[in-house]
């Protein structure tokens, strides 16, 4: 064992000195240090904000789906989703046993049909939804969406009409609308129903064509007693993927189809995938730029300081200690940048969590078409901030490998030759 081998790797007093050296080195070229730190701050803010927004959007979408008209999982007669006719209907009794599944809390039944709505000389094709007005009131918050008139509070007769349709057909409360349609198995369906309220479904698309009545009334209108087109499965937890598989295993798939929200909303699913990939691509670009700029800094620093490193090693400073001084400089800058970046990012992310951003463009259209809110609150999940802080710190460590190798290979007399 040599004298060297017996030395503790690093003792406290020199470490304070090494730290002091690194710290003072940061201030030798203030402009470069400011640029380095600001680029890290910018990267942290940008990455954290962007990911918080994306994850917030997906999270909100999922939350929306639970309380949406669609639900996580629906059961139909096999083929209904591709051919939405009333003949593709089934009896609720066929599936009541699904309530035995431990994750299924309720089943709500609907008839989703189409009809021609007429008032005086005016007629318009509408989507006629028959649903259990009591059961779905709370789940969908339908009563809160009534802007004029009232919800089916103590009654099950009458209809709710979308405000878009109201404006197009100049409808008023108490007016009666006549529906004409083809009923179950080719029968004629017709009836007259009084308007008890107007409902704002938040999206123009839905408001223009939606009429809601109680399920029993719809069954009567379409002459299909005890039949439904749709059953929405209420779930106790968000584990819809597994539940769907188990439900599929229990039903007769020749008779019935079991679809999840993904399958019913392929467009949305595609948008999320594109959005996620786009996000990753932007992050990749961002981190490439950061890596190159940090590498540039490290390269310049190492070249500039190599004479000094040569002197330090010549007079007897162990290479490991020189390495610590050298990499501490960029690590300290990175820590400063990361902390400042997180400090700036937090209020921004918090602000957009409290005052969510309104989606626009294609995303807004698709989202609203399915009755979701086009608002995205940012996600406050701390793991987003931590993971990006971690990535940047990791990049700093990686680019410092250059410094480490350079110093390991440094020969003092060569470095000190001018």
């Amino acid at each position, binding site marked *: 064992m040599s004298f060297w081998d017996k030395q503790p790797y690093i003792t406290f007093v020199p470490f304070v000195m090494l730290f002091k050296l690194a710290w003072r080195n940061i201030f*030798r070229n203030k402009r470069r240090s400011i640029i380095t730190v600001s680029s890290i701050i910018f990267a942290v803010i940008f990455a954290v904000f962007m990911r918080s927004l994306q994850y917030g959007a997906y999270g909100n979408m999922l939350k929306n789906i639970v309380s949406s008209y669609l639900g996580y999982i629906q059961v139909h007669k096999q083929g209904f989703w591709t051919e939405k006719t009333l003949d593709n209907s089934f009896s609720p009794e066929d599936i009541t046993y699904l309530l035995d599944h431990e994750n299924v809390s309720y089943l709500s039944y609907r008839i989703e049909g189409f009809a021609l709505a007429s008032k005086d000389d005016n007629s318009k094709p509408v989507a006629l939804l028959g649903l259990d007005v009591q059961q779905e009131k709370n789940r969908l918050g339908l009563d809160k969406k009534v802007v004029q008139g009232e919800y089916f509070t103590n009654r099950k007769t009458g209809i709710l009409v979308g405000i878009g349709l109201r404006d197009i057909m100049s409808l008023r409360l108490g007016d009666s609308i006549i529906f004409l349609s083809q009923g179950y198995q080719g029968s004629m369906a017709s009836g007259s129903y009084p308007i008890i309220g107007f409902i704002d479904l938040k999206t123009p698309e839905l408001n223009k064509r939606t009429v809601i009545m109680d399920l029993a009334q719809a069954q009567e209108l379409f002459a299909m007693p005890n039949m439904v087109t749709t059953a929405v499965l209420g779930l106790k937890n968000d584990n819809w993927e597994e539940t769907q598989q188990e439900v599929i295993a229990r039903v007769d798939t020749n008779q019935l189809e079991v679809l999840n929200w993904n399958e019913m909303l392929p467009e949305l699913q595609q948008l999320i995938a594109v959005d996620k990939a786009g996000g990753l691509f932007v992050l990749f670009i961002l981190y490439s730029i950061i890596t190159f700029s940090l590498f540039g800094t490290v390269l310049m620093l190492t070249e500039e300081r190599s004479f000094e490193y040569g002197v330090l090693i010549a007079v007897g400073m162990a290479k490991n200690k020189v390495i610590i001084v050298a990499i501490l400089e960029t690590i300290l800058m990175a820590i400063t940048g990361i902390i400042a970046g997180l400090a700036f990012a937090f209020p921004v992310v918090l602000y957009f969590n409290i005052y969510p951003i309104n989606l626009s463009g294609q995303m807004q259209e698709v989202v609203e078409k399915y009755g979701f809110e086009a608002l995205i609150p940012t996600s406050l999940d701390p793991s987003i901030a931590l993971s990006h802080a971690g990535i940047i710190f990791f990049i700093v460590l990686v680019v410092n490998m250059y410094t480490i190798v350079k110093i390991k290979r440094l020969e003092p007399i060569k470095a000190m030759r001018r």
Partner: protein
Amino acid sequence: MIKVTHVTKTYDDGKVRVEALRGINVEIKNGEFTAIVGPSGSGKTTLLNIIGGLDTPTEGNVIIGETNIAHLSENQLIDFRLNHIGFVFQSYNLIPVLTAKENVEFLMLLQNKSEAERDERTTKLLKAVGLEDQINKKPNEMSGGQQQRVAVARALASKPDFILADEPTANLDSASTANLLDIMYRLNQEENMTFVFSTHDQRVIDRAKRVITIEDGKILSDEIR
């Protein structure tokens, strides 16, 4: 005591072969004040680097005290330099971000010396080189001569066996040269510190107690005054 035996140094980059040293034998005893002189390219720097463990000889041995430094690993050599050899280079010796006091203290920190010892020695050395009123100045706030005096103080701080100085006065004006020489000479006289330095400057040569002249990598003359 430094004992250099049969040292040769050949630089060979594949294209050009330079025999910088061709069989150097020399012994330097404690307390000497020795100048190595010779024309440019004669091998002064090469010899000092080999004695200081900054470069390795192609052949031959360098024994410092009891240690044959040709047998040390890279890390052992660095540590040997820290504890046994003081260096003064031509210029830019000091750490730019540290004050005069911190520069002198630096090697003692690496040696894990106590704070009391560091303070006492730093003060004493800066006084010895006449810079007691400049202790908080950074290198770029001092003249070249003052910087070289700090470098001498730093070289002494680690209590080395001897100090090697390759052309320490090359970048100094004559007043600073004389001043630095005075200080080195006094330290040699009063503290019995060994100095080995190379120089071109006749005024510096005149102050040396021993003058080793090399030419073409060989010792031409060795004169003790």
